[in-house]
């Protein structure tokens, strides 16, 4: 929506309802009776399995990705135990390879990619834009079923013998030589891609067409900007992955020469296709978490996000540049030297929008009023770990250094700093920040802080030694290693056990809070977003009255919460009288 249009829409609204600035086109729904919300609107199982309520679909996703997270985590526990000793003695080589493959496939395709968009995005995008639901509620439900079908194929692949190709499915190993259940796993990955695509379509359509009156593009929360950018990447990238795994399946099943040179194919072609999706997929995993962090930092520093537009455009810049750097995964494959140099240069450029975000978040704290609560600990932890993950990416973009550290534990450490230190911290921060909204209950704050701190230190102890291991030259995906690498591996495994406890704690106290937590109230954090202007948990149709937006997002000034403890982005109390239509002012 262009600026003049939004102003026009807004002033039109004001003409009708100048005193309160709200319109109420649909005020009474069956599920919107007092005391009724999306959780208790219906109790039977079918009302969940056939729901088209975006909030219920979000909860279905929350439950399923949590199961997959702990399944993938269990695999990690086993191989970290194996790596305590240099000899391959706890599990056989074959089992070890299946464990890290299962860990990778489950964590990437069934946890990290859907985590923030499908759980928090599903739940919050309509609430944040002031809509009743997503644009295509039935497609949204279909996306969950597709996710489950993909998950079933993957679980079947694991149960009927496992897969040992690594989550990257490199050919010709995956297409010709590996004699494990590659086809079933490939089908699982192929299918689950469509669930991401449907979620992305829904988010894009919703953001374009269903924003509340007055909610122009530059008044959107940065969470929405991040999800919008992510959805574009999903739409453009995921079909390429689908085509790639089909080609692997075709070569494997029908011996058609595509990737295997013995059949006349090109083994490197697979890597081009795979990374054309899978590098942008990194941004699919981390951009939504960045959106979460922008919300949390702003709320608990009680300051408008510093450089709102820079952060919004940085998301788009990352989405675009992310498609141009896949070749940095292939510096040592024998691709031409000049291609390598171009990819190295472009990869360097991705660092800039990421740096802009980090600096802006940090600056948001300056002259803020910082509350060190659980969600904020996760968000600040995110900034620290993402900074390290991003900076260590520079080693890999620097082509001469990448030749040495490529396919070593340096890579493993780097992408875990982005994926776990970034995405998982952001996801957990978001779960804690919006838990009161989703469930109507508060969790025990003390336990929350303990878990966040355990996770931060456990994470660093697990993955920092892996940077050192990588530069020493320990290759990844090895089940048996030379003895001088042992000390660092033991440190890493010790950290993993702390990390594991850190992840189990929220599972415990969040479930506890469902029954015993204090009622949260509509807006326990005194936050400004539209999602906080409705009940917790929200009614089935989200808002009792259609919200109308009169101001920019994050107007947290004055920095101390006022006496009434309420600082909405909407009227009635027009605390900043001059902001109507004042785009771009910070």
């Amino acid at each position, binding site marked *: 929506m262009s600026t003049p249009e939004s102003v026009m829409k807004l002033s039109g609204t004001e003409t009708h309802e100048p005193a309160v600035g709200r319109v109420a086109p649909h005020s009474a729904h069956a599920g919107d009776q007092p005391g009724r919300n999306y959780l208790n609107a219906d109790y039977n199982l079918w009302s969940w399995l056939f729901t088209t309520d975006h909030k219920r679909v979000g909860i279905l996703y929350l439950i399923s990705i949590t199961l997959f997270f702990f399944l993938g985590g269990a695999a990690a526990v086993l191989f970290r135990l194996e790596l305590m000793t*240099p000899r*391959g003695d706890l599990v056989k*080589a*074959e089992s070890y*390879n299946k464990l890290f493959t299962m860990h990778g496939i489950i964590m990437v395709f069934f946890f990290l990619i859907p985590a923030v968009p499908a759980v928090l995005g599903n739940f919050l995008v309509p609430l944040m834009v002031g809509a009743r639901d997503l644009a295509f509620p039935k497609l949204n439900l279909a996306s969950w079923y597709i996710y489950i079908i993909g998950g079933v194929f993957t679980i079947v692949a694991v149960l009927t013998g496992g897969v*040992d190709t690594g989550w990257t499915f*490199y050919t*010709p*190993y995956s297409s*010709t030589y590996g004699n494990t259940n590659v086809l079933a796993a490939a089908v699982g990955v192929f299918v689950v891609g469509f669930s991401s695509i449907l979620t992305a379509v829904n988010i894009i359509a919703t953001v374009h067409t269903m924003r509340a009156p007055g909610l122009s593009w530059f008044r959107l929360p940065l969470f929405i900007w991040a999800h919008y950018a992510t959805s574009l990447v999903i739409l453009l990238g995921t079909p390429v992955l689908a085509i790639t795994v089909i080609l692997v399946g075709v070569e494997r099943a029908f011996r058609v020469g595509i990737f295997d*040179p*013995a059949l*006349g194919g*090109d*083994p*490197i072609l697979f890597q081009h296709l795979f990374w054309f999706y899978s590098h942008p997929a990194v941004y699919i995993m981390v951009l939504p978490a960045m959106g979460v962090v922008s919300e949390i930092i702003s709320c608990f520093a009680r300051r408008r996000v510093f*450089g709102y537009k820079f952060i919004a455009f940085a998301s788009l810049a990352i989405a675009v540049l992310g498609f141009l750097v896949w070749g940095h995964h292939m510096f*040592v*494959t*024998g691709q031409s030297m000049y291609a*390598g*140099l171009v990819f*190295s*240069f472009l990869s*360097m*450029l991705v*660092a*800039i929008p990421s*740096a*802009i975000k980090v*600096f*802006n978040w940090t600056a948001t704290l*300056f002259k*803020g*009023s*910082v*509350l060190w609560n659980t969600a904020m600990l996760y968000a*600040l932890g995110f900034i*620290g770990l993402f*900074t*390290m993950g991003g900076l260590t990416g*520079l*080693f890999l*973009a*620097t*082509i*001469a250094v990448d*030749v*040495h550290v490529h*396919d070593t534990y340096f890579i493993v450490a780097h992408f875990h700093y982005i994926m776990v230190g970034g995405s998982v911290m952001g996801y957990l921060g978001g779960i804690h920040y919006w838990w009161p909204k989703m469930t109507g209950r508060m969790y025990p704050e003390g336990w929350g802080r303990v878990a966040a701190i355990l996770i931060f230190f456990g994470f660093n102890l697990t993955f920092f030694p892996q940077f050192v291991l990588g*530069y*020493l*030259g320990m*290759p990844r995906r*090895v089940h*048996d290693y030379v003895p*001088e690498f042992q000390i660092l591996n*033991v440190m890493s495994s010790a950290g993993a056990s702390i990390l594991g406890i850190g992840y189990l704690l929220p599972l415990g106290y969040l479930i506890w809070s469902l029954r015993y937590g204090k009622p949260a109230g509509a807006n326990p954090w005194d936050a400004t977003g539209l999602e906080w202007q409705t009940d917790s948990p929200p009614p089935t149709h989200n808002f009792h009255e259609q919200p109308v937006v009169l101001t920019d997002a994050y107007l947290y000034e004055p*920095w101390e919460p006022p006496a009434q403890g309420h600082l909405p982005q909407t009227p009635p109390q027009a605390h900043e009288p001059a902001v109507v239509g004042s785009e771009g002012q*910070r």
Partner: protein
Amino acid sequence: MSTDFSFFPEAASTIAPRVDAVYLFILGITVFFTLLIAGLILSFGIHYRRGSKASRENPPTSIWLEITWSVIPLIIVIGMFFWGADVFVDMRTMPAGAMEIEIVGKQLMWKVQHPSGRAEINTLHVPTGQPVKLRMISEDVIHSYYIPAFRLKQDVLPGYYTDFWFEATKPGDYHLFCAEYCGTEHSLMRGTVTVMDPDEFARWSAQESRTLPVEAGKELFERFRCGSCHKGAGAGPGPALAGVYGSLVPLKGGGAVVANEQYLRDSILDPPKQVVAGFEPLMPSFKTLLSEAEVLQLIAYLKSLSVAE
């Protein structure tokens, strides 16, 4: 538990200290910015904690801040790019007169063929002070030849030759790993690179008398009766092979290709792929008859024909 432990790997090639220099530079940048961000978060977070008396007046809203923290990192990463690219270009530029060693990777094994005729498996002996070029190919899946002490790694592909070069500087035994996951026992596909003084290496090379690759290639050439078609110019149904290596070969259907090792290999194993102009695609494929190691021997023989002319 092993006490043989260090934080930094040994450097034993001419390129290794240069890679380490770039690495340490980026490490410095990384440490600086990590401490900067962590320090700012902690100091802002504590100084401006909820309820503290610190003044919150006039918060900054400066476009110049945005420009500063965009442009300074941009300059730094472009600097990194050029430094890394400079070292990489030297890594990829093959020096003239390098000793060429041929390596065939197959699941769990690195087979090495020295020009002296000596062969070895899962070890590699090289002299100091002499550029060595490795030409590598895989019999099955993708492997990756990785010598951490040299800071060098190159994927080894099925069907395509890849290469890299190094000059070892320090005698000793160094780890050799396969860095690309290649199958069940991938982690055991490792060995030792032994760097020797040139004299010692010369003695080592002479220890076992083996057939030279050229001679083995000549024997294969005769056994498969290659010469019955590939006679002198215009004399047989196949093109003449003397002098073919390194020449520009015109192709049937237009275009031309330099007859390098890859072209010679493909012409033996997949003849219809690139047929020489003026000839019919009569040659059968030798894919099932020759191993990659034997193809390399044949190529060595073909190259010797070029030198002789």
